[in-house]
Each structure stands twice: as structure tokens, then as C-alpha cells.
């Protein structure tokens, strides 16, 4: 199944692949600085005569290697298989989410993880994939009747599929992931098209429901949104993250303070600088030039993925790629927006850069699926 068809290689998207590898490698450089720990030293690199002192970077390197293997697995899975088992994936992820609600491990006040002995599993990550394939299948199977845009009635079933996992994740509480789940689903729907009337109605409904929704938010979540509007009001409390992050980003100026010279990072004024606020580290140490370069790389990646979507064989494959693309896109915008004070502080990592195994592994797996779609674009096999 893996190495059979030479035709697969003819449509291998080298552009997509190189970006998929380059971005995490750049991320490793940033992470080395962000996770620098003078106490930490790795022996096996001793022959290089380079002192390697960043546990976060080291572990992320290991995750990256694992992730690349996982990407090959993603490439190998035929698109048709995903189509066939989409509901199964969705159902399995949903069961895990219910299990989390039941026996999840509480960390930092939220119940997001399942302890499976060796490591902690975050079923929300599975749900992302589950939702993407399910939505792609639902939408591909019943395209808009007028061949232009969906009506409200046609959207009831997909909406149902989005809201159930979203609700389960939101109550963990993990508002960021819940929102990104919704964004992915909505992006897929929007890609196909919605009638303007429906969009208008939904916007109206959201406005009406905003008040009770606001009240149902946890206090810390409310504060995060309020702080976004006026971060200086509480610089020591909730505004600390945003204030320190803005100082880090702004103080980078045009060319940055230089590798490992970021005071905000190295002196730990910046919280969570290996995970959610890793972009601040990049901004502080590499400046506007570094940031623009990184955003440009992301844009190239998104463009490459959209090109795959465009060239894909059928609507399911296209929507599958669009779903994965929108997920990455949403994470980039939300994370960088948060770091530079345009969005509230929600726990969304920066794709391919932030330290964290599950995020990197699931992203590389997703990118493998996209590569797989690209490779099979002229294949008419019915596996």
C-alpha cells in the first residue's frame, strides 16, 4: 500500500513538503532560545563540540522526527479510506471526549486529558480530524441544491455535528479549542457557500445570544476578553500576559535583539514562552524582519495547501484539504493575534512552532493527509 504506485510520486508536492519541514526547523531555532536552560546539557551531541542546552528544543526535535514518520503514514492513507471511516473516526473521538468529561485528569483547573499510562491523551486533537473528515463527507455528499450556496435547512445536520463536540470541549473548559473547532467547520461550509440571507440570520442570532453566552463564560475567560480591550488596567493580574508580550514584541524593533538576547524571554518576564507565546520570542529576538519572514512562510504553506485543494480529485478531498488548511490558518491568526494584542488570550499554540508533542504530531499527520490528496489527484483507483 505504501510504495506501490510510482504514479503517486509524480504528483508529490515538493513545495508543500519543504515548507512542512522548514517551518518546524525554524521553530526549533526559536525554541532553542525560548527553552534555554543553562542546567540542561545533552551528551550525545558532545562530538559536535556544541553545548546543547535547551530541553524544549531537544524534545521538540524528537517530536518532529516522530511527526515526520506520522506524516508518511498520513500520506499513505488513501483518501477513500478516510471517506469510508469518517463517521467512525468522529464517533471514536466523541466517545473519548465523553470519557474525558467522566474520568479526565484535571490540570490547571480544566479537564482536558485522559491518562493512558504512558502519556496523557488530549482527545480534542482527535476530534479536530474527526470533524474535518466528517464535515467533508457530509458536505461533499450533499452539495447545495442550487449548486451555489447552502440554505439554512441544508445546514442543520452539519451544524449538529459541529455543536456536539464543541459543547463537550467548551465545558472542559477549553474555549480556544472549542472555537477553533467551530471555525474549521464553518470555514468548510463557507468554502462551499452559504446564502447571504442565512449569514445575515446567523449573525443576528449570534448578537442576540451574545449576552447569555457572555454570562455563561468563566470569570477568567471574561477577564481575558476585558483585558484585551484595556490591558493597562490590570498590568499585574490578567493584563500581565498581554503587556509583557507586547513589550517583548515591540522591543524587538526592526532586526530584533539577536539570538538568545531577548531579555523578556531569558528573564522569564514572558509567560509560557515555549508554548503559546513562542511568537513573542521570535519577535523579540529576530524583530520585524524575522516576523515577516515567518508569516510569509506560513502564507506560502497555506497557499500550497489551497493549491492542493484546487487540484484535488473530488469535492471530498478538496473539503478535506480546506478543513486542514482552515485549521492551520485559524491557529496562526488566533495565536499571533493574541501575542500582539489583537485577540484575547486563549490557549492556542502556533502551528508547527510552539513546543508540544500532540499539536505537532497531529499537524504533521494532517499535512501528510494533504500531501496524500495531492499525490492521488489523478488516481482513479477505487481502493
Amino acid at each position, binding site marked *: 500500500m505504501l510504495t506501490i504506485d510510482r504514479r503517486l510520486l509524480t504528483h508529490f508536492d515538493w513545495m508543500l513538503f519543504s515548507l512542512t519541514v522548514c517551518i518546524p526547523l525554524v521553530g526549533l531555532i526559536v525554541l532553542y532560545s525560548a527553552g534555554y536552560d543553562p542546567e540542561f546539557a545533552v551528551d550525545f551531541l558532545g562530538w559536535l563540540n556544541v553545548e546543547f542546552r535547551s530541553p524544549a528544543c531537544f524534545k521538540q526535535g524528537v517530536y518532529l522526527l516522530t511527526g515526520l514518520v506520522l506524516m508518511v503514514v498520513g500520506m499513505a492513507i488513501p483518501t477513500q479510506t478516510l*471517506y469510508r471511516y469518517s463517521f467512525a473516526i468522529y464517533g471514536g473521538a466523541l466517545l473519548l471526549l465523553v470519557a474525558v468529561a467522566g474520568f479526565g485528569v484535571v490540570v490547571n483547573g480544566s479537564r482536558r486529558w485522559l491518562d493512558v499510562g504512558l502519556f496523557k491523551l488530549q482527545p480534542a486533537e482527535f476530534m479536530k480530524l474527526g470533524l474535518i473528515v466528517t464535515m467533508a463527507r457530509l458536505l*461533499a455528499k450533499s*452539495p*447545495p441544491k442550487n*449548486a451555489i450556496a447552502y440554505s439554512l435547512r441544508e445546514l442543520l445536520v452539519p451544524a449538529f455535528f459541529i455543536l456536539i463536540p464543541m459543547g463537550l470541549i467548551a465545558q472542559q473548559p477549553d474555549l480556544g479549542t472549542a472555537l477553533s473547532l467551530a471555525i474549521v467547520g464553518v470555514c468548510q461550509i463557507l*468554502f*462551499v*457557500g452559504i446564502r447571504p440571507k442565512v449569514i445575515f440570520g446567523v449573525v443576528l442570532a449570534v448578537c442576540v445570544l451574545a449576552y447569555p453566552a457572555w454570562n455563561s463564560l468563566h470569570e477568567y475567560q471574561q477577564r481575558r476578553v476585558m483585558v484585551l480591550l484595556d490591558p493597562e488596567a490590570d498590568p*499585574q493580574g490578567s493584563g500581565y500576559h498581554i503587556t*509583557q508580550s*507586547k*513589550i*517583548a*514584541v*515591540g*522591543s*524587538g*524593533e*526592526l532586526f530584533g535583539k539577536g539570538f538568545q538576547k531577548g*531579555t*523578556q524571554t531569558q*528573564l*522569564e*518576564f*514572558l509567560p509560557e514562552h515555549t508554548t503559546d507565546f513562542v511568537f513573542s520570542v521570535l*519577535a*523579540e529576538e529576530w*524583530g*520585524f524582519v524575522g*516576523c*515577516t519572514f515567518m*508569516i510569509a512562510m*506560513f*502564507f506560502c504553506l*497555506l*497557499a500550497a495547501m*489551497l*493549491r492542493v*485543494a*484546487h487540484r484535488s*480529485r*473530488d*469535492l*471530498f478531498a*478538496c473539503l478535506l484539504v*480546506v478543513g486542514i*488548511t482552515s485549521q492551520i*490558518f485559524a491557529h*496562526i*491568526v488566533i495565536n*499571533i*493575534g493574541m501575542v*500582539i*494584542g*489583537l485577540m484575547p488570550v486563549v490557549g492556542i499554540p502556533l502551528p508547527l512552532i510552539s513546543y508540544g508533542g500532540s499539536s505537532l504530531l497531529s499537524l504533521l499527520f494532517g499535512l501528510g493527509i494533504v500531501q496524500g490528496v495531492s499525490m492521488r489527484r489523478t488516481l482513479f483507483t477505487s481502493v
Partner: protein
Amino acid sequence: MPRSERNQLNLGVRVIWAGALCACCLAILVGRLWYLQIVKGSFFRDRSENNRLRTIFITAPRGVIHDRNGEPLVSNRPSFNVELVVEDTPDLKKTVADVAELAGENPDELYERVSKQTKRRRFEPKIVLRDVSRDVVGAISAQRHRLPGVVVGVAPARQYPFGDLAAHLVGYIREISSDQLKSVTYSGYRSGDMVGQSGIESSLERYLRGERGVQAVIVNALGSKIGEAYTQPEIPGSNVFLTIDKRLQKVADDALVGKKGAVVVMDVKNGDILALSSAPRFEPALFTGEISKDEWSDLTDPKSYKLSNRALQGAFPPGSVFKIFVAAAALSEGVTDTHEKTFCPGFLQFGKRSFRCHKHSGHGRTDLFEAIVQSCDVFFYTIGQRLGVDRIHYYARDLFGFGEPVGLAGMEESVGLVPSTKWKESYFRNPQDKKWYPGETLPVAIGQGAVSTTPMQVARALAAVVNGGKLIKPRVVKRVVAEDGRVLEDRSQAPEIARVIDIDPAILQELKRSMLGVVEDKRGTGHAAALPEVSKIRVGGKTGTAQVSSRESGVDVEDHAWFAGFGPAEDPSLVVVALVENGGHGGAAAAPIARQIFMQYFNVQEPQKPQKTDPKKRSRVEVNRVDH
């Protein structure tokens, strides 16, 4: 899955829209980054610098104040201050209340003190409590976890090895007041600095203070120090050596215990002040910690004026001590000579008024010598009348320096006053009061009336009489030596002579003879100052018993007792001026104090004879008391 579906929807358009959306959103991000990093970049760069650097000021130890033999009178010791970093304290009121509870202070008072807004750098600790005990340090350290922002700092504090010895002279230091902070004199100071508030501590502040050190410390987000950006070490204050002799000072201080008054001991040849004592004294150590309201009201009680240095700041009528200088004037002006005798019937009729002599039965026929020895008022009324007030003013003020500032190390002092017709004309506004009446001259001639002087001025003037007419500028600072050994000021060389008094040395010799008579003559008013005969050391002097308020006012206040003495007779080296406020007769209250100092200075032991309890001697002392 039918491929036809794909063609139904125009995916190309949709992909382009999606790409455009991505581009737009990312462009917004880049725009925002441009704003933060390029437009406001330098602002945030400053903020990040402020984040990591904290400035720490290090208090420099003040200079040590020594006596003339190098014995430290005021030194330094480490002390613990409870400090508070306001930025690290989320609930200031609660934390202050917790600290107050541990230290046994009033929470509201403490909070009021802490919340007083003063100029301060970010993260600069504010001193909450000064010089706390080890118990409080222990209690606070043990409770650190619930006292966010509270730190215990070590800073040098003043140590007084001899308690209140020479308290008025050395003075005290206290936290700079808000008024002082505003004044130009204290332009380089910061709130919380300790500043000399009186005495040498204040007048030599510029030498003693040293220079505070500055340390820029790199801290991490938790405020822990992780390195130093730069350090400018503190420079300890310069050490001061006074002319004070600690042993003489101790004798003077002890002699005044329980009294109000002052003692000045001065070297007549070079102007060195060997002792300068004022009573009642205060404990300068009180000011290193927090002063309670009771302690403060005790210190500022107007009944005792504990903080006032009477030797310099007290202006008193000199009484009969002044007669020496009137006599000098009379002999110089030739209004009398050493042979003229005046009859003292116990009073002098002047116009309608009768001016009494202190000895109501009268001294009989007295010459100048007798008049000084027995302190006859009538004699001095007579020669004072002949001199007139302006000639007395000229000799007392322009020659002997009464009513003229002494300028002792720049310490605060009273100027005193010797009246004159000019003074009266300018002092009173009412035309009737401006005229000087001849009858007013009489009290001036015996050191009463408007005459007032400080013990220091008396010492300076008497020194001029016994050293051959040199009015020497008294000095109390011998040397100022910087921490690195540089001598900043050295006054131990030639004395500074304000002027040489133009009086025939024979006249001064005669006055000296009379003053020896005051102590040595059996009828002398200052006999209580005489040293034991075995010592062979002769001292002279003049008593003074100054009326405080007129008898008519009905207030019965004891007179001020004065004794101004010198020794040894042959070649005087020392003057001692003792004043006991409301002490009664000078011969009884002040002369014994001077005697104690002479004994210490000349190293004379009290003879172990039963003479002390000899009934004859006792009765003579009592006679003296009745007489004067």
C-alpha cells in the same frame, strides 16, 4: 463519488477567495507588527529595559565622630529595617497591618506613614520600620510567605557608645523631613535619607554623610537578582575629630545631671573647646528607631527644652560675671583706678529710684579689687554711670564680643545682646521708648537689664582677659579625615584670632588678680571653686547671680547661677564657664561645677581629710550662700 460534483461548484474561484482571505488576515498581522515594532519600537525597548533593571541604593555609613584623643563618641552599627516594595504588594493595607501586628505597632499609624506618597523609583523599597529588633526580624522572616513585597534590609545606624554624652554637641540624625527635601540645601537627597538635624551631625553633614552607592541589578520576572548591570560603590562619610576631651566632657555632663544649664570648657591659647555640655540632655539613640508620641512630646516639652543646646543657643543675663568687662572698660577709660574707694551702704540712690546692692547691709568702702571679690553692685552702678551705656557697649561688644556670633562649627546659636542708645532707638517703634534713660545704664553695668549672652560668649571673652587680650575664635572641629585618609580639614594649627583687644595688659593683669581674689579671698564669692591647697594650683573666676524676673512681678523664680573661671593663675590655659539655670547663687551652684572640671583637668585628687565635714568650713559655705 461522482466526479461531476466537482464541476458543479467552481472550486477555482473559491480557492482564490480563500487565498485572498488568508492574505488579508496575515497582512493585518504584519501591519500590527509594523506598528508595535517599528512605530512604537523604541517605547517598548525602554519598557523592556525598565523591566529587567532595578536600581538599588546603598546607604553609606556616616563618618565617625571622635574626641580629641581619637575615642569614638558616635560610630555606626548594622541595623535592620523593614522595607516594602509597593509594586510587589497587591494588598498594601493588609500587608502593612500584618507587619504592624508582628512588630507591635499601630496598623493605622503605620499605614499612614507608608502611604505618604514620596518620590521613589519603581521597585525601590520603602522603609516601613527603622532599626527593628532581632525578634521582629525573626517574626517577619518567618512569615515571609504571607507578606508579599516585604523585605528586611540592612543599613548602618548610629551607635552612641557613651549614651547621651555630649548629646547636644554631636546632635542627632533623623529621616529627612519633607520640608528639608524641598529646600535647596538638601538638593541631592532622597526621601528616607538620614540627615543630621542638630549639632555637629547637622553642621558637618556634608562631611559625615558620605555618598550613597548605586547598583543596577538585573532581575527576572520574580524580582530575584540574577546579575549586576553596573555598580557604583558607596563612599563612607568622612571621620570627624573634635577638640572635645571625652573625660572633661563626662565630668561636665555628670555635674549637670538633674539640672538645667550649660558648661563650656575652652583652651584660652588656641580656642579648642574641651567640653561643651548642656542639660537636660536627650538620648540621641532615640532617633535611630521610631519615636513614639510620648517620647516626642517629652523631647519638645517647653518646660525643659531638652533639644536646645544651652551653651550656644541659650541667651541669659550674665549677671555679675559681666562686671569684669565693665571694670576693664572703666580702667581703660580712666573713669576709675585701682585705688579709688566707693562707699557701699547697700543701695544707690539714683534720682527717685533706689538701686540695691545684693548685700543689703552694704560692703562699706570698697576699691575695685574688693568690689570684684565681693561682687559689690553699688561700685559698678557708680562706674557704670560714669561710663555710660555706649562705652560699656563698645567694650563688651566690639572688644570682648558679647552680642556677636561665635560661629562654632556653623552650629546654631543665639547672638545675645548688649544694649546701647542706638540699639534702643532702632529696637522700639514708639518715640517715647526710643530714648535711653541714664537710670537704665545701672542694671547694664551689673549684667542685668537687656544684657543677654550665651555661655560660649562668656568663655570667649574671659579667655581674652586671661590670655593677654586675644579674642580667639573657638573651635570644636580639630580634623576631618576622609575614608581614604585624605585630610579634608585641619584646624589644629595656629588658632584663628578674631582681634587683639586694645587694652593695657596691666589692666588685664589687675582683673586677673581680682578674679584670683574671688576664689582665694576668704570673703570671695567664688570660694567654692578653689582647688585643694595641696595641689598648689590656683584658679580664678567670677561668680554671677542673674535675676530672672523682677521681684515685682511676684513670680518667685530662682536666679541663674554663673561661674566663669580660669586656671592656672600663673599662665592660664583653661577657662571654664558653668551656668545653672534657676540654680540660685553662682558661688554655691555654679562654682563647684567649675571646680570639678579644674580638678579633672589638672588631675587633682580630693584630699582624703575629714576637712570636708569640718563644721567650720561648712558654716563658711553657708555664710557665702546667705551673703550672695
